[in-house]
């Protein structure tokens, strides 16, 4: 059992742990963390695969760097979305300052149907 295969299995384990967490938890932040764990697991597998040759495979490293940036931008967007959604649930407007909300002329969502 060489070091690389340990990391391959470790990566798979973290991925599955993330998947398990995603299905088990209900809080959005934890589900987002679970998604990030799954991502880290996959990147671990990729880097372990890259380490099979010396010097390690640069293509896989480049892919992981790209993957990391995708992960951070998606996580940032998801976090902002979850906080906005949570704030909508708890009654406040999605944005702390009232002024900009009223002025928004973006498509007004259809008034909840009053007709039976």
């Amino acid at each position, binding site marked *: 059992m060489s070091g690389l295969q340990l990391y391959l299995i470790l990566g798979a384990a973290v991925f599955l742990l993330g998947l*398990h967490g995603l299905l088990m938890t209900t809080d959005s932040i934890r589900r987002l963390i679970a998604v990030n764990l799954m991502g880290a697991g996959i990147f671990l597998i990729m880097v372990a695969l890259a380490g099979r040759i010396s010097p390690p495979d640069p293509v896989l490293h480049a892919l992981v760097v790209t993957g990391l940036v995708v992960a*951070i931008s998606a996580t940032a967007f998801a976090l902002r979305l979850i906080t906005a959604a949570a704030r909508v649930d708890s009654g406040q407007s999605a944005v702390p300052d009232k002024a900009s909300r009223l002025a928004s002329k973006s498509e007004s969502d259809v008034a909840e149907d009053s007709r039976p």
Partner: protein
Amino acid sequence: MTLELMPDIVLGALLLLMAWGALYAPTRYDAMALFVAFGVVVALIWARLGAPDLALAEAAIGAGLTGVLLMQAARQLPAEASVTGKRMPWFGSSLLFLVLTCAMFAAHILTDSSFKQAGIDASATRLLGGPTVPEMVTAALPNSGVSYPVTAVLLNFRAWDTLLELLVLLLALTGVRQLYPGTPQHPRANTASPPQAWPVLLSWARFLAPLLVLLGGFLLWRGASGPGGAFQAGALLASAAVMLRLTGLLPPLRWSSFLLRLAVILGALLFLGVALASLAFGDGWLVYPTQWAGALIILIELAATLSIAVTLSLLVIGESEDLSS
């Protein structure tokens, strides 16, 4: 044999512990803290596996910026109902069974012939008789304009991926901006309130910021010959901007200012411009003329670093009046 594996086993155990904690810690705040720690451990593992620029990127982005993001989210989120919510009891055990079977299955495939330890299984990639991709990279490195293979792959061989990569960042920013509709505040409404943070913090920030900028520049320049590059440098600069903004030393980065918008899209714009120019005048989409390849790559990396830094800082600490169109 287990002696030299000891650090790996320790790191692995630490990783799994952090991961489990990040998911099932009693309160959400602990989960976030453990997740940041998880990011640090992953950075260590990247270093251990011989991927220095990955370690850099993970430390700066994974542990640093994500940590700030999570803390900000924690501040605004209402209390959390319950950790695993109302899932049925048997759901957990069946799920565990599923995870275990997958783990065994993964162990099986990862140890079968095709993933042998001794290098990529020669037969696999040489099937076509051609060289493996890494060999092609080292062969094509001299006329790729840079001497460090990862940067060569990122910015020359697979430049198209990186261009789309920059678009993903722009997209995330546009998406976040949807959450702050409404007319822009007139700039003078809340001028940068005088920095009332503690003197110690102010002085530390004033000391650390130039160091970070210097380090970012160094990483960017070193990317051509060693680990480093646009993403890592951008992340460092973003963390500097975040720190300055949180301590109030930096005025809010208003989206309504033209310069900011130009900075945000500069990376993608320049990259696309180079691609179109090479299509029109050069001999093909994203084909760098070999003698200018190095210069072009540096130019693109510069623009990319700037736009990554600004985008990431807007993503992390963009307040409502910064982001509203």
